[in-house]
């Protein structure tokens, strides 16, 4: 009987571990699946060419950069 309780405890702990891994894997997997195809320079810089943005020749208005800069400061 004691042996059965040991097996139940082991099963419960591993089940919880797999459940958590599955949940986190689903969240991260969904993000990667939907996010990776969008990872291009245009995502960050919009219409502004990379060289112009790097040498501060043109202001970046579109893309994520204007939203990312305040995050870096804070």
């Amino acid at each position, binding site marked *: 009987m*004691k042996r059965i*309780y*040991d097996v139940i*405890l*082991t099963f*419960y*702990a*591993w*089940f*919880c*571990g797999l*459940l*958590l*891994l599955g*949940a*986190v894997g*689903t*969240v991260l997997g*969904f*993000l990667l699946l*939907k996010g990776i195809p969008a990872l291009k320079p245009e995502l960050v810089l919009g219409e502004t060419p990379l060289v112009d943005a790097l040498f501060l020749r043109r202001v970046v208005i579109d893309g994520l950069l204007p939203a990312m800069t305040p995050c870096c400061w804070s």
Partner: protein
Amino acid sequence: LKLRDRISYLLFFLLAGAGAGLTLAIFFFMVLLGRPLFDGATFDLLLASKWLPDRGLYGLLPFVFSSALIVTCSLLLAFPLSLGNAILIHLLAPRFLARGLYRLVSLMTGIPTVIYGFVGVFLLVPLVRESFSRGSGMSVLSASLLLALLISPTMILLFVESFAAVPKAHLRALEALGASPRQKLLHIILPGAANGLLAGFLLAAGRALGDTLIALMVAGNTAARPTGLLDPARTLTAQIALVMAADFDSIEFKTIFACGIILYLGSAGLTLLFRALVRRRHDPSGFGVNP
């Protein structure tokens, strides 16, 4: 005491006082700004069972009930999950796997709430809608599932730390007697780590109570008392966010201070409850292990 010690003592005392003072100042700020709500007639409006600002009803009870329901459900889901993971990490898993799982859980604490929220909107909400064929899927159940995932890392880390604080000598003594992992857990680890378990549980409860984005994005935001797990609901935090975004000077707006006071008192109540339970709790192991 030497002069240097006295200065250090005074400095730390002032810093601790400033921290406590800031917390109290926030409370008094909310009471001060919400003061017009606390005269007799307006206060009665807050106790109404419905939130219908157009008809002059500003009842906050549906939001209090929704918050309590979502927090309770998420804790009921997260506690067994977290305990199982803590047992796996501390007791059962091979060393490399335990270390990897612990790091993953630590990483999870850094995932922003909004990520859980929008993954919930695109993945969990349609799943709940199609599984139960009722409502939009934005419900107490969806919010509770996501909140359970959000608060689990907090609980797991505190549980594992409190398990690790149990004296190794007692565990070795039990091992020498041929005890199984279950016996070590039931007779030494759990009794010795009970304060840590309680601390993790209440800290996670506070986090679930204070979370805004998941409830706002996934719970459905209906300003009525939910009658079941598949009903939409609006929590106190979501109510504050929604009213602040739409209004700035009316009784409706002032009710956000009442919501803030209820949340503040709820969190303070949880902390006081924890202290009272720890003080009263008889420690059967006699270890006196503190979180």
